[in-house]
């Protein structure tokens, strides 16, 4: 827009405002705004993560994700999802109580860990979508911890067990009905084998 046009516009606005108020001169105040929107450096590509932070005792966590014949790495061990897949435990709505009907699965997992002292266990806690997201992240953790507790009661050393909550972020069934929800409220056992 050229200067003449802007000037003309301002004159028009002042004239219009005078016509409307009718009695007092009100010059148009020009408010200059800072140029450009906020640019986020590194926003598109986060910088590499430095080591450190507040690490738990003795943890060396691998990057994960790299598939090795279906096995991924976890804390320097190979995660075997298939070995205990038949023993996934299901929960009631909004509950972290391990039901009696699910206990045979817990017994089987305890037996597998006792049979091979070189393996460890990762327990994943999951929720259905009928809860708020961070509430579900906490509930999923409590489910995983309840299964850990049940295994410890059956003689598995607690230091062999890690827990992770995915909340509602990793459903097995993406549906939005009771059938899907029942499948998604679960605890999964992932066997960790030495490399």
């Amino acid at each position, binding site marked *: *827009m050229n200067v003449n*046009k*802007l000037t003309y*516009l*301002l004159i028009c*606005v002042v004239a*219009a*405002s005078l016509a*409307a*108020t*009718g*009695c*007092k001169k*009100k010059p*148009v*105040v*020009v*408010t*200059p*705004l*800072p*140029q*450009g*929107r*906020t640019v*986020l*450096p*590194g*926003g*598109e*590509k*986060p*910088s590499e*993560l*430095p080591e*450190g*932070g*507040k*690490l*738990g005792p003795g*943890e060396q*966590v691998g990057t*994960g994700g790299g598939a090795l014949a279906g096995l991924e790495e*976890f*804390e320097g061990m190979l995660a075997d999802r298939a070995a205990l897949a038949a023993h996934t435990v299901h929960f009631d709505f909004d509950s*972290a109580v391990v039901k009696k009907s699910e206990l045979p699965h817990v017994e089987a997992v305890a037996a597998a860990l006792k049979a091979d002292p070189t393996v460890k266990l990762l327990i994943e806690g999951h929720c259905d979508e009928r*809860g*708020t*997201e*961070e*509430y579900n*992240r*906490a509930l999923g*953790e*409590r489910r995983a*911890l309840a299964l850990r507790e049940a295994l410890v009661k059956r003689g598995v050393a607690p230091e062999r067990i*890690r*827990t*992770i909550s995915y909340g509602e972020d990793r459903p097995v069934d993406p549906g*939005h009905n009771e059938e899907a929800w029942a499948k998604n409220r679960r605890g999964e056992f992932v066997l960790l084998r030495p490399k």
Partner: protein
Amino acid sequence: MNLNLSSVVLPVSRRLRRAMPPVACAVALLCVPLPVRAQADLVEITREVVPGASRPIPVSVSGFTGEALAVIEFDLYVQGFSFTTPDAAQFLLSGSNDGSLTGRAMDRINKSLLVNKSYTGATLRRQAHAFVEDFIRAIGRVPIDASKKIAFKLDTGANSEIYVADFDGYGAQAVTRDNTIVAAPAWVPGRLALYYTSYRLGNPDIFFHDLSTGQRRVFARYPGLNTSAAPSPDGRRVAMILSKGGSPDVYVADADGGNLVQLTHTAADESSPCWSPDGRWICFATKINERRVLAKVPASGGALQVISTRGVSNPSEPDWSPDGKWIVFTAQMGGFEICVVPAEGGTATVLVSGEDPSWAGNSRTVIFARRQGGRRVLSLLDVPTKQAKDASRFSGSSSQPSWAR
């Protein structure tokens, strides 16, 4: 419902008459042919938030077009204004946006000129936001500060990443590219910096990310759950949920991660901590006798106190208003409802369907996530009038909004 509304109900016309020189002259009266409407039609401008009980203020908007008009109408709607013809409006907003924006706001009742400005620079959108801010400030209210951004979780298929955008959803930018679950963003007050939860290192860990430099670091990475970081109003401490003690509990640490203190010791799972604006309390969701409740503990440690939310059940995701008066939260009663309760507890008011609310700095507007089919969309809510409107859409499911303040 006891809303403690004894104070400061200010009819705007009287307030402004006091502020303005006596300019009502014969010419003005002749220029505006319609008589002053009955006093009963006036909506009182009040500094108090009256959740869900206020009538929108009728305004007329003329002269603007296209994007500028859309921005002005959106900003006014989510701050409690409705649109009508000039003869029925309490305030008249007019102007033009040929190149840059010129805006004028008048009180139709007492004929006072509230805003008469031209805006240059930045973008037309920013100019339109600035005009609405000037108008709302001129009638004695605190406007939404359009320079404050929102952060949110955007689902990208199986994963999710953190994005930031203007409060109306425009100009979205990715903050993370972790190719895993990234969730629960929270702004550091007064800074372009976020805390959030990322599974990038194989575990839900809390990261601190300074968006002004692009640098980030691991903030909390204990065995088990590390999530729901909430920086204190002065930014010096961070409340969070950790499960390293055997159950998800509320902890607080210094901003460098040191001086970690466990604030709750329950067998139940706590979630979603937030701070009182004076920094003295941390409010969160927990369970007592298998009943879900909101509770608070002193930030320096101490006994847990329940915050009553009479009338609704299963509260979670509290957020304390910046003026200290209200706690907005999600109640789960079949669906999810955004509710508000006085900060000291009391009877809750159900506002609109949705979840995970976050207050704007004006202690009046809230951003939340609304379920639509299988996904979530971000929406803005004017708490006093219950007027709600979706922010601009993203291709994936967007949730967990945090409004910078």
